């Protein structure tokens, strides 16, 4: 089934099975591999991307359901908030194995895009869907606060 959508600012046309999840279309058909497969049932958040600026779990949305819409992956996460998040992640050395971190940063970016001064409770609510088996949660929280502070400055 042919479908068109915008990915990281570029219009893309793909011909994929009707039920193929957006995650696998991004990874396999468009070679954008930052978004990771972790569970396939929207429980871990490793596949988080933005759909029209909202964080979604790409593993559980058929690509054909997002025709005509706008998708942002970590590769194209170039908004002011996105850059601030990725900078803070590096400055605090948040990563360990790193596998979940693309999804973490996309959730965190979406949080800052809707809330420039998130509280710890806001962070809990926004990041609760992103598992990190290395439990880098402390630094994720600290990096979001750091990015928010950098955006204030």
């Amino acid at each position, binding site marked *: 089934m042919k479908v068109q959508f915008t990915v990281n600012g570029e219009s893309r046309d793909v011909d994929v099975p009707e039920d193929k999840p957006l995650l696998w279309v991004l990874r396999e058909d468009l*070679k954008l591999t930052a978004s990771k497969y972790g569970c396939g049932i929207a429980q871990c958040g490793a596949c988080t991307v933005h759909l029209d600026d909202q964080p979604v779990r790409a593993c559980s949305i058929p690509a054909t359901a997002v025709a005509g819409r706008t998708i942002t992956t970590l590769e194209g996460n170039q908004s002011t908030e996105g850059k601030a998040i990725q900078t803070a992640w590096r400055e605090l050395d948040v990563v360990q194995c790193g*596998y979940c971190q693309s999804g973490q940063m996309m959730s965190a970016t979406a949080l800052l895009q809707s809330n420039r001064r998130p509280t710890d409770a806001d962070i809990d609510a926004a990041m609760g869907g992103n598992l990190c088996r290395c439990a880098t949660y402390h630094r994720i929280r600290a990096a979001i606060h750091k990015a928010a502070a950098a955006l204030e400055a």
Partner: protein
Amino acid sequence: MLKFLSQPVATPTLSRRRFLLTTSLGTAGFVIGCSDTRQQAGTPAANNEPVVATDLNAFVRIGSDNTVTVIVKHLDKGQGVSTGLPTLVAEELDADWAQMQFEFAPADVTRYANTKSGSQGTGGSDSIANSYLQMRTVAAAARAMLVGAAATAWGVAAGEITVVRGVVAHEASGRQAQFGELAAAAASIEPPTDPTLKSPDQFTLIGTQVPRLDSPAKTDGTALYTIDMDLPDMKVALVAHPPKFGATVREIDSTAASAMSGVLGVYPIAAGVAVVADSFWTAKKAREALVIDWDTSAAELRSSEQIISEFKQLVNETGAVARDDGDVDAALDGAAQILELQFELPFLAHAAMEPMDCVAHVTDERCDIWTGSQLTTLDQGNASAAAGVSKEDVHIHTVYAGGSFGRRATLESDFVVEAIAISKAVGAAHPIKLQWTREDDFASGYYRPMGLHRVRAALDDAGKPVAWRHRIVTQSFFAGTSFERMINEGLDPLAVEGAANLPYAIDNIHVDLQLSRVYLPTLWWRSVGHTQNAWVAEVVVDQLAKAAGQDEVAYRLELLGEHPRHRAVLELAADKAGWGSPAKTGVHRGVAVHESFSSYVAQIAEVRVSDAGELTVERVVAVVDCGVAVNPDIIRAQVEGAIGMALGAYLREAVHLDNGTVREQNFDQYRPLRIHEMPTIDVHIVKSAEAPSGIGEPGLPPLAPALTNAIARATGKVITRLPLGDQLKTS
């Protein structure tokens, strides 16, 4: 764990130190001379000239662009070794951190063996420990070669040359050069056999917070994991694994699957039935379309309840003796107080975020593997047997692993061998990427084994412990594998670690082990036997202190007279947590101290339990002594992560068998810790001049007992069955 996988590495006439130099420096002078397209972390060349890379030895490669590439012999699965080993090299090379980069070593036990085990691999929290002198020595030798090249070029004495942050200089003549200019000439300099290493007071990088080398790639999406591999003509394979352990295929109807567009074929292999297709999604759909009649006549059909019942029988039978000090029976007979506790622990899943995966390409001549290879020499050997090529023709290309926690270190190289079997079935035309789904990852092995522990301990009338009998029932990882020889007369050393070496001064101690039958494949899970034994021992000690009417910290200190490093971390933890002063209203503290992988960790947990029985872990104070702290920030990260992982396991992680089928097949049922549950964690590192020891695992074991002890103070209830679940709930 690697120490159990030993093989001879050196002839008896060579000392280890000498051996390291002769082997690891043996390739000096080999100039690669190729265009270097690897990920460049350092300064790129100013023009478009190809970067010429010169190997000064097996571990240190200098680029004509002044980059220093460290060949990292260990897998980085998050623990930071791809920063740690380059730190050791940069220190002795006097390099600038900005010029450092790394790549993972190929499989080559002659150059990249663990210096302790002799086998190339990663585990037992000993990557820094076994590399500490080796990396510094090869770097110091490389430095001497660069200095020698400069001395020759400039006609000055080597002793007058300095190296500071990557700049080689001769002050008197005003000459200076960077590594890249000197590398080619340096390669032909004879390396010193015994280079002088810095004394700790000369360190400028060790002990400082250098940034992780893997952070940039892991934050911009370019870090390459197995799942990201994409080779020309590559196909994706999924395997229908048996629904119960030990089940076999009776009959396959692959008509519908084979007819699907994009499916290359369906291949029965030892591990199950492989479906190979042009994409993950097609392979997954085709796997769902397979109709397989499984023969479960020889399969494991028990449920967890039956297994624990069998354990409860075994705990009454004498096991293989791991320690026998004094006369426990006599001491128990004459004791003033006797305490007996029985503990139950579940199967646990590693649940690394990246489900198991491996790319394989087998041809007549060679076998290439791309994966996060953890026990590389074992993987190479198992791959050689599976592929039918010599070990030397098995080429392992190690990439980042999205976690492991022990899972990628299987004795039988399960998923690697599975990928090779598929590649052989498919033929050389297509490399194949075996990708496990999350459900495969949970349901197809491996697991931290269940455990049942009984401790009977006694106090004299002064409250001093006089007897300690600990019986462990669990399944050995080695049983039923080609490593069965690791079990010595019923004793698996990994099952009793942290129990047989109980540090407390008790005259009569007896520890024995009853190994169960093999139910399903089990494996080391972050901190291995310590995950069980630290919990049991430290909860019992706390109860002994209570029975003696003594403070839990003071009681332990009294019994740890011969163990100064235990004492030091415990005292510092008590100090940092304010143990001697009251906690906030409603907050209760619990303490534990444990040594694992030669590192010492004390933790004090602060918890709150509501009237309804809701547990909140507010803070954990952790004090670690892991010898020289090569990178304190990574040490803190490891301890934070270990505590988070341990807390998730404590609260609710468990794998259950229902008539032989794994109940928890995804993260909706097996639920690791999430961000809102992460307590405040204060990590303190003891300043130490001891040799560096483990840090990937030692932060984990003390958490469960510290929590249990805190909960006991809060509620009076001693938790002896994990996970906690709703045991505290009052409604």
